[in-house]
């Protein structure tokens, strides 16, 4: 039997990585922007991993949850700006809205689309993402394709000074908090019945059913959890850092692809993987765009192909196998 304390050892490398990132960002001049980007990618990877990595279902429309999260925050700010004295509470209301909308959408999509498997599920989720975008634009909901811009409202409610620190610092700290919470939840799931059920259904869904697992229930748990983190991430990183929202931007499929790459690169279904994947992806993207601006994708595409063909387990998957029998094993899952 495992002692209670050792159960949480795998969180140590994850939190160490975040601590180092934070310290670098605060103490090395000019680094905060890069650190913020890395935090975003790590958080994105961790959030998506809870569904993609743990169930093996490919949600190609994942970005839709970030999109509605962004709208949640944007709507809270634009609709409530006229109320006097709300102050910072409006941000909290925004997060609640983001959470609410992401939950609602994920329950709706999960209830119907999770009946499909494999490629059919992937295509259905693309359909949800694109359909939602074009519905917002076409029916002119939430100002349609003109989007919502709320810099002025933020300045008015919080004051110019506070609004500016919110955009350039506190929004990133919120991303960090989301990343840390996602790590906790991931480990909690891995260690609990939920994790066992998800592993079983990822490997063989029909066998899992026969073993007594209510696969639909566990898929929805993972789907909704993952979507909620995405919604919060959209609210924190997109709505607050750049106070506007346009449908083509927040439903852009490339973000889903980036999230998939991060999860796969690090090691899908592992706790540490998305952090490692986020760091590698973010750092290489940042420097490639400095050294060969405009052609970073030309370098990235073959790298992705090579990784999938030769290292499908990802970095952490490989480390896990390498250190299986050593003392390090209890830190890497």
């Amino acid at each position, binding site marked *: *039997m*495992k002692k209670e304390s050792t159960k949480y050892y795998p969180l140590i490398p994850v939190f160490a990585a975040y601590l180092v990132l934070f310290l670098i960002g605060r103490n090395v001049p000019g680094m905060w922007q890069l650190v913020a980007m890395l935090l975003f990618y790590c958080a994105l990877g961790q959030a998506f991993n809870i569904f993609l990595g743990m169930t093996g279902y490919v949600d190609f429309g994942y970005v839709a949850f970030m999109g509605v999260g962004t709208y949640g925050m944007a709507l809270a700010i634009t609709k409530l700006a006229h109320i006097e004295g709300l102050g910072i509470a409006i941000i909290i209301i925004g997060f609640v809205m983001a959470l609410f909308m992401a939950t609602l959408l994920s329950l709706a999509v999960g209830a119907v689309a999770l009946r499909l498997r494999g490629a059919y599920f992937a295509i259905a989720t693309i359909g949800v993402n694109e359909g939602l975008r074009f519905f917002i634009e076409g029916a002119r909901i939430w100002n349609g394709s003109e989007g919502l811009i709320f810099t002025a409202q933020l300045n008015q409610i919080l004051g110019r000074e506070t609004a500016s620190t919110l955009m350039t610092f506190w929004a990133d700290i919120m991303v960090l908090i989301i990343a840390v919470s996602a790590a906790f939840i991931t480990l909690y799931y891995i*260690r*609990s*019945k939920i994790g*066992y*059920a998800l*592993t*079983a259904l*990822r*490997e*063989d869904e*029909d*066998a*899992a*059913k*026969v*073993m*007594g*697992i*209510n*696969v639909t229930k566990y898929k929805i748990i993972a789907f909704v959890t993952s979507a909620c983190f995405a919604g919060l991430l959209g609210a924190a990183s997109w709505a607050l850092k750049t106070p506007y929202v346009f449908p083509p931007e927040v439903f852009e499929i490339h973000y889903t692809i980036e999230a998939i790459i991060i999860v796969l690169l690090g090691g899908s*279904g592992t706790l540490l993987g998305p952090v490692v994947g986020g760091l590698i992806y973010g750092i290489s993207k940042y420097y490639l765009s400095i050294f060969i601006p405009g052609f970073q994708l030309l370098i990235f595409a073959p790298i992705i192909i090579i990784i999938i063909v030769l290292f499908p387990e990802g970095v952490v998957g490989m480390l896990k196998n390498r250190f299986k029998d050593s003392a390090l094993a209890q830190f890497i899952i």
Partner: protein
Amino acid sequence: MSLLILENVTKRFGGLVAVDQVSLEIKHGEFVGIVGPNGSGKTTLFNVINGVFFPEEGRVIFEGLDITTLPPYKRAPLGIGRTFQIPRPFASATVRENVAVGAMFGTLSGKVNVDESLEIADQTIERVGLKEHRNKQAGTLTPVEKKLMEIARALAMKPKLLLMDEAMAGMHPNDIDQMVAFIKQVAEEDKIAIVAMVEHIMRAVVGMAEKVIVLHQGAKLVDAPTKEALEDPKVVEVYLGRPSEK
């Protein structure tokens, strides 16, 4: 009360009748062999019993409860365990984790926590003799080890009925004897009814069985105590040119 009763069960796929008006009865602790050539509807019958497919006609009754349209995940905890023709381990998980899944979700109380499940898994693994492999990924086991692991996984569910689909296929004759003896022993100790499905009239399996059911083109041909069944002229006819192994 009977453990399992099938009443006139029919399952069709499009125009094809896979299981045709089959009725049968399994008692607690019984060892039953279901024999039938490839395509005779054996696997479909299993799938109807544990809920992978719902029959178009007929009823499935388990311990007096009509489970005809109960989803599979609700049947397993009632006490229906299963192994597959081609083993289906959760490949990336360890043997221990695989077996723990059985204990965690397949037992009736539904309140077995993770630690207790792992303990049950350890005991069950030891019982089937896979102790030294318990931390290996299930996908890396040999075919025979995978079969043993599946048996352990099913036993961890504390089943009342264990459905074994071609449990001995592809095994060496000596291993088969050993395996059958083991299963027989477990069944007696745990009071589990075993329904073992085989393609040929295998001496080892059929010899152990108290009752043999022969399926032919989806329909039940013979349902009789072993000795009678083997002498039945209809069985001899179906297996003409394919004499029972001596």
